[in-house]
């Protein structure tokens, strides 16, 4: 009998085979590839293991019930990321009763924001960076992590947020600005006095 090894198949091939056969073999392949990513992201956003476990379960149900709608225009990992992120944001919104985290910011106005050099963010020391990121709102933190940690392109981030690329560029610009502001507030440069 011909055996299927995990590494031979791309995500898209596994999806096609799962959709054609509904076999638990292909279900398990996709599940094993993404459970750690989904669970990690849920823990990072929800800050609670039990909630992350429930979220991961719901996210996988969503992924598999909507699998036929995955159009393969984007990477499957980006699609999974998008479902994970949006599900967790919904959970946070419901718990905080914050209805519009993202769109509130879009309505903030057309204030001129100074462009922060990537170098400033990339040179932040790890513990300080963690502290500062925890001071940002969940969207700002997420968009910066997507760009600077995960290395997602603007196009991929725009798919996750379901926004235009120019909206994402602005979002990143704002988030960088806030990150630097929080950094300077939390870790002020000590002036030397004689």
């Amino acid at each position, binding site marked *: 009998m011909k055996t299927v090894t995990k590494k031979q198949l791309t995500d898209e091939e596994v999806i096609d085979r799962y959709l054609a056969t509904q076999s638990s073999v292909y279900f398990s392949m996709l599940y094993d590839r993404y459970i750690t990513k989904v669970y990690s992201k849920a823990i990072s956003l929800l800050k609670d293991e039990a909630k992350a476990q429930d979220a991961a379960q719901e996210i996988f*149900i969503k992924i598999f019930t909507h699998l036929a709608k995955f159009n393969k225009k984007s990477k499957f990992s980006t699609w999974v990321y998008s479902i994970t992120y949006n599900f967790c944001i919904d959970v946070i919104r419901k718990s905080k009763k914050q209805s519009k985290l993202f769109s509130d910011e879009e309505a903030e106005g057309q204030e001129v924001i100074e462009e922060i050099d990537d170098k400033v963010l990339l040179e932040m020391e790890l513990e300080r960076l963690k502290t500062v990121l925890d001071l940002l709102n969940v969207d700002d933190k997420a968009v910066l992590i997507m760009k600077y940690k995960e290395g997602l392109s603007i196009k991929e981030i725009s798919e996750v947020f379901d926004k235009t690329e120019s909206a994402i560029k602005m979002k990143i610009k704002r988030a960088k600005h806030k990150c630097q502001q929080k950094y300077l507030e939390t870790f002020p440069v000590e002036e030397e006095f004689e």
Partner: protein
Amino acid sequence: MMSEFSSWGLIEPDVEPPKIVKKTIQKNVMAQLTMARFIGNIVDLYVGKVGQTIIGLAETFDDDGAVKYQSHDDK
């Protein structure tokens, strides 16, 4: 990737879920999907039949039928 050169790569490393959690989630998801598929099949089976009946009924009232009826009446 930029993160390779900075602290960003070390922010929020992946957390492997405990094996028991991994298994539990997998089992629950599979159970839900099986249930959804079962309900889907039932709906397809019965709603499908209802749909066929409606299509069949609609065909008896189509334009052709109406013309035929009129012409029959005129006779």
